[in-house]
């Protein structure tokens, strides 16, 4: 962003320079959702609309604090870089939604480090756990002690903001042999109850760690009973589902539902089926930051489209 654009020498704000500023670090895709159909728009116009009419929040995911293997020897450092980007934002987002795997091994020191770095943003963080956040001896108690206040069961909850209903789901607990992510009967009953009084015109944002739909079964990338949750959400005019877990971008639109997975801030994972396993992908160090990042989601007040901008750490 501080890099000087060759065509900005006349001192005027050229389109190219404006794009660099408005879409902070934005190499990513920008698209909007209108009536369930993704519409490509000019980046500048969209960013402007967001700042004028909507409120925005960030999705961050898969920080894996404590990870120090070949794919990224210092996951805390790359989280710090992401947080520096957040602090530099011209328009302050309302909060951060974190879609799980805050830590690598659920250690207290890892949670402490994550809390300290996220604390620097001055923003509230709404968490859901990933499978790496519940492998303490008490199997999830460390997570709940820190982030579970006001949540139900293994840590699910909902809240309302700017007319949008936000739902944080937990699909990493009580996993069954040979299966995928799991929500469980108790959580599904809670979800049905939570949605009962909501009007179908209420925009819904659902966030959970593992993708709610089956993205790649061979690697366990999906949620066993996710379709039951999606069935409960079907009557709503605008549903945005934010997930992590797969450390890469994946987007899908189905009816009024938009699915989005965020980049990790720790390490990339291979595209489905492109490697022997979904394990951390080692890339040349100069390429790493182009595969890590975060997403900015803008909720606009006119109509119900949400705009998502994915950004990488290398710009």
């Amino acid at each position, binding site marked *: 962003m501080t890099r000087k654009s060759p065509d900005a020498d006349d001192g005027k704000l050229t389109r190219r320079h404006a794009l660099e500023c408005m879409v902070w670090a934005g190499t990513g895709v920008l698209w909007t959702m209108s009536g369930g159909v993704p519409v490509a728009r000019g980046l500048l116009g969209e960013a402007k609309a967001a700042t004028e009419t909507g409120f925005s929040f960030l999705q961050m995911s898969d920080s894996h604090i*404590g990870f*120090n*293997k*070949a*794919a990224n020897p210092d996951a805390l450092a790359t989280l710090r870089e992401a947080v520096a980007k957040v602090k530099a934002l011209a328009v302050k987002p309302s909060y951060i939604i974190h879609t799980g795997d805050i830590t*690598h*091994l*659920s250690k207290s020191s890892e949670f402490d480090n994550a809390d300290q770095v996220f604390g620097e943003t001055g923003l509230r963080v709404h968490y859901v756990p990933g*499978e*790496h956040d519940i*492998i303490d*001896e008490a199997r999830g108690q460390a997570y709940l002690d820190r982030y579970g206040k006001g949540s139900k069961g293994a840590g699910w909850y909902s809240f309302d903001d700017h007319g949008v209903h936000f739902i944080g789901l937990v699909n990493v607990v009580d*996993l*069954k*042999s*040979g*299966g*995928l992510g799991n929500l469980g009967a108790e959580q599904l009953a809670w979800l049905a109850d939570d949605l009962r009084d909501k009007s179908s015109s209420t925009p819904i944002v659902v966030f959970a760690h593992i993708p709610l739909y089956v993205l790649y*079964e*061979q*690697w*366990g990338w999906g949620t066993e009973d996710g379709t039951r949750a999606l069935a409960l959400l079907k009557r709503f005019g605008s549903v945005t589902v934010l997930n992590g877990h797969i450390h890469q971008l994946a987007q899908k639109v189905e009816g009024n539902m938009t699915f989005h997975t965020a980049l990790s801030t720790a390490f990339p994972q291979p595209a489905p089926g492109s490697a*022997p*396993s*979904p*394990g*951390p992908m080692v890339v040349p160090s100069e390429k790493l930051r182009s595969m890590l990042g975060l997403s900015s989601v803008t909720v606009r007040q006119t109509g119900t489209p949400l705009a998502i901008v994915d950004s990488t750490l290398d710009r």
Partner: protein
Amino acid sequence: MTPQPHHDSRPSDRNFRLAIVLAIATGLGTGVLTARQVLAATAAPAAVTIDNFTFGPANLTVPAGTTVTWTNRDDIPHSVVATDKAFRSAALDTNDSYSFTFRTAGTFAYFCGLHPHMTGKVTVTP
């Protein structure tokens, strides 16, 4: 990072010692120390490694009394959880191990508690 100790290696040793004590006690009690009891207490250990989100070998056959040790070679933690909940390891970070001694004959299916699409089976012969 500090290398992790072998998870549950002490309980296994303890189980092993207990097996010998029981075998001897039973032998003293009845005046006979059967060959099977001795065999059960001295079966050679067996190993399963975890590579690329896969248990290898996925199907292992061992005599009763065998201690099986799982070692994680991946850059991602895994765990070993019996489908019938008979045993469960802690999360195993890279190069961590977990051991369990199979005393009775039968088929024991297990999976990774973090990545449940990873499954394996230990068949224990009498």
